[in-house]
Every structure is written in structure tokens, then in C-alpha cells.
């Protein structure tokens, strides 16, 4: 699945993330969650993510980064990203990677990936259900983290076509509030 890994590395390059998945648990964790988010938002990858104890996880992806770890640490790829892929990377950077969460960055990313998977697989649809299910699977995540992760999931899945004139008007009103 080298073609898939090329795309994953392109994402890391975009985010300027130099990871060492062989030697760092945190880096492996991050790579799994960010790849899942990219795929779930429309990036064409053939990884098969399941929802397990550690949130979305794919063993094929793990095999790939153990096999080609040097390509990941050196961000070596010839893959040229499409406009759509760049938009996906931009969204993830904006709403997940750059999100300020006091010393809880990994838990936040864990929450976002888990909620996104629960939502897409239809395990829960309403915010309350998603919150409850996430807490059930991940009891160590605080309510605060789940709430901001839920908001991030909403932002990630928001499409410009959802922005009706009525919504625009309301947003403008909030923007002028100062």
C-alpha cells in the first residue's frame, strides 16, 4: 500500500509534522488518527479503519509505517496533492492540529477521531448520543474534551453549501456584535 502511504506523507508534509512512528507511541497514535481523519473527510485511501479500544485504528497502516519508517521521518514523497486534498489538510490543520487545548492535545485528537468514527458508522447521530457513546468507549476523556472534540467534528464536516443566506445573515450579526 505504498501509494496510500505516499498520500499520508504528503499530509504530514503539509502540516510540517516530522514523526518517528517506530520509536514514539505518541507519533504512531497521531499518525493513525490524522490518517483516519483525512480518509474520513474524503481523501482516497484504501485503509480499513475499525473502531477499537484505542479509537480508529488500522493494522495495514501500522504495517506500512513500520516497513517504510525512513520515508516518514524524512517526509519523502513524490505525490502531488489535489486541490481537494489540500482543502482536507487545511481543515484538519485549522480545526484539529492548531486548536489550542491546554496540555490535552492528544486526548483532544483521540476524542475527535473517535467521535468522527462513531458518527460516520452511524453508532450515534445526535450530540447527546455521541457524547454518551464516546464517554462509554473512552471513560478517561473529560466532558470538556468531548465537548470541544464534538465542536471540532462539526467544523470538519461542515460544507460550504450548508451556508444558506439565513445562516450567513446570522453569522454576520454575530461578527458585528463588538
Amino acid at each position: 500500500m505504498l501509494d496510500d502511504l505516499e498520500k499520508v506523507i504528503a499530509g504530514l508534509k503539509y502540516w510540517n509534522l516530522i514523526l518517528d512512528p517506530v520509536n514514539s507511541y505518541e507519533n504512531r497514535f497521531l499518525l493513525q488518527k490524522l490518517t483516519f481523519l483525512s480518509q474520513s473527510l474524503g481523501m482516497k485511501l484504501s485503509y480499513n479503519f475499525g473502531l477499537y479500544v484505542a479509537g480508529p485504528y488500522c493494522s495495514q497502516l501500522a504495517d506500512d509505517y513500520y516497513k517504510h519508517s525512513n520515508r516518514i521521518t524524512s517526509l519523502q514523497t513524490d505525490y502531488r496533492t489535489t486541490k481537494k486534498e489540500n482543502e482536507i489538510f487545511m481543515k484538519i490543520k485549522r480545526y484539529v492540529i492548531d486548536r489550542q487545548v491546554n496540555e490535552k492535545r492528544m486526548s483532544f485528537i483521540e476524542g475527535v477521531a473517535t467521535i468522527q468514527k462513531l458518527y460516520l458508522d452511524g453508532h450515534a447521530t445526535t450530540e447527546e448520543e455521541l457524547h454518551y457513546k464516546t464517554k462509554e468507549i473512552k471513560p478517561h476523556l473529560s466532558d470538556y474534551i468531548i465537548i470541544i472534540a464534538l465542536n471540532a467534528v462539526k467544523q470538519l464536516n461542515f460544507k460550504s453549501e450548508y451556508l444558506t443566506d439565513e445562516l450567513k445573515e446570522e453569522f454576520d450579526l454575530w461578527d458585528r456584535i463588538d
Partner: protein
Amino acid sequence: MSTSCDEELQNIIESRKKIINAAFTSSRVLILTLLQHFKIGIQYRELKNTLNLSDGNLFSNLKNLIDMGYIEEETIQFDTRPLKIYQITSKGEKELSKIMEWIISIKKLIGDIEC
């Protein structure tokens, strides 16, 4: 039962001797299986939540598997907090593989029971 079935049964009895008894409890086989699948490593809290074992039970099983060299424990910083993660070793992979082969040979014998 025919001779081939006798041979298979004999193989099962013989290959059982190759499996380390201490590794062959349902909890330990399950821990090894989980760690074999999650090459990323598993956090202590995730194991506890999944296996639904008490801290004492889980801790003693993990300690035994570490002592036998089948798994490794590492303390990492996760969100600036120390966190214990576990990974299977190559020795653990080999033992799990022996157990799996043994179970498959039993299944095969049961499937061939009419022979």
C-alpha cells in the same frame, strides 16, 4: 478412528508440550492477541476498559507476561502525563503463534472426527 486421526491426536498431545503453561490462560492469550493486533501499543487504561479485569488481576497478568519476556512495558509522556503502554515482543509473537497453531490443529481434528 483411523490411523491418520490417531496421528493427529498424537500431534496435538505432543505439540501441547511446546506451549508454555503460564502463557496459556484466557486472559493472557487475550492480552497477547490484543497486543499482536495493536502494533501501535496499548495503554493500560485501554486494556483495563476492554478486558474488564480488576487492577490486581490485570496487573499480575501483565507482570507475568513481562517476566516471561512476551510483552514490554514503557512509560511515556502523553499530554504531559506519564502513561504506561504495552507492546508484544518477538518472543511473545512466537508463543502466540504456537498457541494458535495448536488450537487450529484441535479444530482440524474435530472437523475430521468422522475419519
